[in-house]
């Protein structure tokens, strides 16, 4: 369940994002579960559609949900994705603990993901 409290200072999109993320972490929402449509959630919580859309965008860029066209938004699927996300979280925590800034740690990942030249 998502509780939106208009009396707290946290922006509404962040309240939604944080609660959905927490439910995924707690396993209340599982891979394949469909989230309510942006319009429906906006009507339920009496907020603008854009606010919910922003929360969903942020969840999507964090890899927690995926949008499958008109079918709606779903909690991201396979165990591989979940494991990859967990590995990414651990990496970010580790490099931040080492004092590396975000752009430098991202550059490392980019270099590792870049196709290797043949024969090297």
């Amino acid at each position: 369940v998502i509780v939106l409290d208009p009396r707290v200072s946290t922006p509404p999109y962040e309240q939604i994002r944080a609660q959905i993320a927490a439910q995924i972490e707690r396993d209340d929402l599982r891979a394949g579960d469909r989230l309510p449509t942006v319009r429906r959630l906006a009507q339920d919580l009496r907020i603008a559609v854009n606010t919910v859309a922003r929360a969903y965008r942020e969840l999507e860029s964090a890899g927690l949900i995926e949008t499958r066209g008109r079918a709606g938004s779903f909690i991201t699927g396979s165990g591989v994705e979940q494991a990859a996300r967990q590995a990414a979280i651990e990496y970010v925590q580790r490099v931040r603990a080492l004092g590396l800034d975000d752009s430098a740690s991202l550059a490392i990942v980019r270099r590792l993901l870049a196709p290797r030249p043949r024969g090297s």
Partner: protein
Amino acid sequence: VSIWFEIVLLILAVTAAVWSALPTRRRLDRAGEHFGRRYRLWILPSDTRRVDRALRREFHGYAVGTIAAGSAYLVGRLFAEPLTMFWLSLGLQSVVVAGLRARAAGTEFPTVINEPLVARSRSVGLRDYLPTPVLGLLAANPLLAAGAALFAAFSSLPDQEARSVVVLGVVISVAEATIVGAAWALCRQPEPASSLPNLYLHDAWRARTLSAMAGFLSVVIIVLWSRALASSGDAIYLVLLALCLGLVVGSPSADPLHFRRRLWPDLASDEVVVVGNAEPSARPT
């Protein structure tokens, strides 16, 4: 003389139908108590008024549908026979009532501005409110109505009788398909709630409305088939009809708490949800 007699009879019938559903204090109390018992709700006095208002709105929808059907009957009688017009207006009444209910869904129990709002974090659909056999019946009903029309078209019924059943079959299959669409649309309406009990109240109300729709549709199908088979006199059809009757009448009322198991799995089966100021002990999925 005959048309005036029919008009008077119609006005009396519409008045009686509306009168019999008038939301008097006693009827509201009884309906509220039945709703609470059936869906394991304890409605505190602070919220009784909201449930009464929802029941009254339901009555208004029924009255509008009945009056619309009566008016349509009167106009239609200029062009068609009484029995066909009776069925046409019954189809219209059910479509109007279902449409109004679908339109009103989610607005029955309004929230207070500036209070925290609660919403479910996963999408819900018809299968969350209705058990699988009832869903199957809902999906099959337009086909059953079309089947009755086909049966009548190729049966040995007298011409006029067969024509009448074919018209009814077509009208009812369209009405049934429209109502199934309304039921589907109803599930997509918002459920603005200010607390978990409030959300549970929305769910229970929605399950009640959908169950009533399914029951009504099924009864119409039975009446249609019994009309189509009335003159055939074949024993096997009558046995099939009796079987359908049992299935159709039994299923919608069989499992009122289906929504609770689907949407509120943490609630104990005998736990009563207090609607008012208290929170239920369980969280919805």
